[in-house]
């Protein structure tokens, strides 16, 4: 109700100027005024625009030099990446391209690459042919025994013998499988993924053929998990066996059935004549393709490669862009406790932890612990027992086993939950966008419905209009906070309006259940116009929804009990840790294969942005740590990213984990200094230049905490500073030294590009010098 009095006007104006000065707490009342169409709303809107225009002009005046210099750096990096790519292309193109055989699914196109001088081309072709024909004969033990690991259909439909398989069902071995309706994907027992295009015919684990995949027609895309020693992963066709060497690739049998084309997106494969699988065929690495009918090989055009990438990883085009060149990942793995066999006590503790993670539905963390134990202690029955439990289908939950009018997986595809309920792909929506994240979700066994979402930018409308018969309905709205940008409370709030009634006001998922945790809201509503309308309205950040269920409610029927809130689990039985903090920057809580807990991103000053790229990371087994990161704001006018770790006085080792997830993939594209306690410890760190994209980089520095906290900050030189994970490890008591001026040797070997923090200084002069250098 608007009050025409001057008091009201003065109050709104006072709130408004406070809002512009950064007091977000005044926003709700102002929003109410604007939404109610108060008389001041147009004036506020006009003032906001003018303020912003003045602010932008002022910024461009004050920061002109910074801006121009930053663009100059980007332009220079752009020029250098061009040179780099063309140099690499020249090397790769040493093998001549070959016109691609007629593609069945797409119009034929010219493979990328350039023709080189004819003599060189001929020589290279001859070499390839020689390698092809002369592939070493291997004993007939082609078929590597594989354990009885079950294969599950994860998406799509599949014809298996006479049966129709649906997502969630087990896929039998040695039975002809036909994919005749869209795309279908399988998860194999070892965690590898196999997707097939429409028209594909194949068999799994057919006796007498290298496997697990025997492809008869069509095209498959494989993302292969690390294979245990002695095992191989191959796709065999009539023309060739394609064996993975830790890899993502596609194999296609052309329509006439004569040619087999292998295309490699990541890692390496060996292509060998049929019946002679293994690593001694023609080796293909990323960006290359080969037609097995003649042994010719070409570098894929970017268009071709993009398509292959989209088949292998449907959701990561940015990762493809991040890989314009091949960079050999470092082969040396950091020596760690994993090199040692665990004691009985440690094993028991890890098994307990794995079981606790399983109970919470954190299956991939549990699987990581099982894999880590199995690597170190192969063949133990207790480890296999836990593995079997992790694979077992979850128990039924009665509250979700009711027939529904609608079950909609917002922003996602069709899904069958563990109780056999089918959730339709996203339908009946209006407005909004879809997003998908590959994180594990706590408090549910239906992770896929929470991993996808429909969301709307604040200036957009988003709603669902579900056609129903008039009557009473129970509506369940499913939510989970899954985006790294909004992991804390007050970062996202929105209203939900069902049939014109505001049923959730300024709803804050993270405030209620935390991030990466499922929650369900249930309400009863009446429909009189044949449409059940659900609208979402912005308060802070973007409104979103994960899934919607609608149940009919008879006139005399009592509504079903509302679903329980996520169970509060007892604390995880974590083994003793050597670290004061382990933080997965930009990401969720993660328990690694050694049972070390990395807490969800915390301890930062509510600045910076989260970024995620769910792809394999080279040079580490801790992929989830590196798949998310936090990036600092760029310009001096914004608060820059600072992590602050409360710590009692003493000596500490900081282990900093970095990765180039590939937004500006070029040497010199992103360069920054790292400061600990305001002292520069890493100068001009250029992750791409050191290790390339999507590769883990670990730096260690020592520091002394003097003031009760360890501050970690960053100074940009080009692009944005960023961090993937942080460990703060107290050095042993004997090493906790009283603060002294001067230097102490860290004792760690120096590596190129690495600058160690050697100084522990409280000398006033040194402190002053640092302050002057700080931005």
């Amino acid at each position, binding site marked *: 109700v608007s009050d025409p009095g001057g008091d009201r006007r003065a109050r709104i104006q006072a709130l408004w100027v406070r809002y512009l000065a950064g007091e977000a707490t005044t926003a709700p009342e102002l929003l109410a005024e604007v939404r109610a169409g108060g008389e001041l709303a147009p004036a506020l809107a006009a003032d906001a625009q003018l303020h912003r225009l003045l*602010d932008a002009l*002022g910024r461009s005046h*004050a920061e002109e030099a910074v801006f121009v210099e930053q663009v*100059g750096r980007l332009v220079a990096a752009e020029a250098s990446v061009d040179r780099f790519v063309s140099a690499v292309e020249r090397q790769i193109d040493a093998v001549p391209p070959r016109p691609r055989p007629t593609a069945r699914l797409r119009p034929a196109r010219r493979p990328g690459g350039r023709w080189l001088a004819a003599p060189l081309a001929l020589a290279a072709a001859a070499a390839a042919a020689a390698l092809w024909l002369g592939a070493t004969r291997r004993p007939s033990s082609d078929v590597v025994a594989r354990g009885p690991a079950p294969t599950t259909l994860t998406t799509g439909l599949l014809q298996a013998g006479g049966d129709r398989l649906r997502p969630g069902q087990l896929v039998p071995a040695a039975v002809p499988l036909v994919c005749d309706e869209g795309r279908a994907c399988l998860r194999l027992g070892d965690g590898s993924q196999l997707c097939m295009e429409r028209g594909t015919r194949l068999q799994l684990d057919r006796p007498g053929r290298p496997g697990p995949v025997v492809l008869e027609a069509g095209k498959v895309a494989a993302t292969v998990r690390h294979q245990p020693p002695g095992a191989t992963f191959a796709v065999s066709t009539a023309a060739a066996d394609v064996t993975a060497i830790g890899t993502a690739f596609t194999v296609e049998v052309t329509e006439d059935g004569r040619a087999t084309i292998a295309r490699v997106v990541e890692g390496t494969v060996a292509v060998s004549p049929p019946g002679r699988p293994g690593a001694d065929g023609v080796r293909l690495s990323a960006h290359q393709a080969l037609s097995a009918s003649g042994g010719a090989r070409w570098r894929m055009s970017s268009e071709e490669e993009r398509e292959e990438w989209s088949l292998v990883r449907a959701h990561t085009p940015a990762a493809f862009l991040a890989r314009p060149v091949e960079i050999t990942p470092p082969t040396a793995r950091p020596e760690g406790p994993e090199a040692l066999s665990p004691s009985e006590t440690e094993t028991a503790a890890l098994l307990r932890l794995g079981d606790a993670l399983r109970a919470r539905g954190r299956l991939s963390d549990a699987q990581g612990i099982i894999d880590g134990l199995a690597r170190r202690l192969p063949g133990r029955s207790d480890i296999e027992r836990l593995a079997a439990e992790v694979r077992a289908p979850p128990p039924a939950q009665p509250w979700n086993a009711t027939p529904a009018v609608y079950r909609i997986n917002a922003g996602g595809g069709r899904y069958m939950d563990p109780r056999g309920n089918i959730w339709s792909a996203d339908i009946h929506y209006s407005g909004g966008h879809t997003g998908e994240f590959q994180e594990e979700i706590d408090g549910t066994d239906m992770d896929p419905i929470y991993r996808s979402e429909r969301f709307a930018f604040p*200036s957009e409308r988003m709603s669902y209009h579900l056609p129903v018969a008039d009557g009473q309905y129970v509506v369940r709205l499913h939510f989970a906070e899954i985006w790294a940008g909004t992991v804390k409370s007050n970062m996202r709030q929105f209203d939900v309006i069902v049939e014109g009634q505001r049923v959730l006001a300024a709803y804050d998922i993270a405030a209620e259940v935390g991030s990466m945790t499922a929650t369900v809201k249930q309400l009863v509503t009446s429909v009189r116009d044949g449409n059940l309308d659900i609208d979402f309205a912005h308060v802070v950040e*973007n409104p979103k929804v994960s899934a919607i269920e609608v149940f009919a409610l008879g006139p005399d029927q009592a509504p079903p009990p509302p679903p329980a809130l996520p169970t509060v689990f007892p604390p995880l039985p974590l083994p003793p840790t050597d670290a004061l903090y382990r933080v997965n920057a930009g990401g969720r809580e993660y328990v690694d294969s050694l049972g070390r807990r990395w807490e969800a991103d915390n301890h930062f000053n509510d600045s910076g942005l989260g970024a995620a790229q769910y792809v394999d990371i080279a040079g580490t087994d801790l992929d989830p740590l590196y798949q998310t990161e936090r990036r600092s704001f760029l310009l001096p006018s*914004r608060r820059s990213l600072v992590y602050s770790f409360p710590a009692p006085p003493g000596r500490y080792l900081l282990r900093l984990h970095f990765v180039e997830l590939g937004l500006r993939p070029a040497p010199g594209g992103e360069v920054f200094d790292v400061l600990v306690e305001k002292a520069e410890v890493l100068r001009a760190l250029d992750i791409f230049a050191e290790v390339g994209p999507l590769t883990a980089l670990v730096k260690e520095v020592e520091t002394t905490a003097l003031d009760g906290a360890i501050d970690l900050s960053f100074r940009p030189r080009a692009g944005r500073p960023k961090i993937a994970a942080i460990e703060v490890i107290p050095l042993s008591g004997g090493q906790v030294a009283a603060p002294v001026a001067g230097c102490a040797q860290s004792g760690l070997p120096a590596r190129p590009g690495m600058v160690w923090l050697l100084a522990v200084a409280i000398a006033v002069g040194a402190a002053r010098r640092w302050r002057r250098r700080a931005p």
Partner: protein
Amino acid sequence: MNMSARPNQHRGPAPADEPAHIERAKAGDREAFSQLVRMHQAVVRAYVSAHVRPAEMADDLAQEVFLRAFRRLEAFQLPESGSMRPWLLGIARNLLLEHQRAPARLEARRPADLEEVLDTRQLDGGLGISDTMDLERRIAALQGCVDKLGPAAFALVWRHYFERRTLASLAIEEKRQESALRMRLLRIREALRTCMEQTGEGATP
């Protein structure tokens, strides 16, 4: 403060030199390109800032506008006006549309604020950025109106917006309440808006 130091939005080369700088930049002269960035950054940043928050995201996008311009510079044909500004704003517009559509959200989503709701009132929910000419007229009108401000009002606008001083620090310096300065700035903006409306370039449609 020195009142002769009124804001000069047209830094860098004079507009008449622009075609020559474009030619040199096309030939690979990066310094010439930097001059062009200097010449157009204020308008491009103002334009992007009008549609994207937070500010550092807007500036990232503005950088991307210039990077794209650099990549496509060879294909750029100088129009009769002799300025690349309409072309730059066209790139910015496409980038904003892409940004709004970006489904992967690697960095697409930003914490939003009340202002975005106000924008939907102001801009009818759409991008409302087809009339880039309008922005240039409004900036020109705003500059004219800022110049007409009295000395005290001008000083406050200049020191807060252009010298990036916080109102809190200005309040201490001038021995006034910060809340009083905020209200004063609101009144100044109201006056600027009235002035711009009188010249036919008001913010309200």
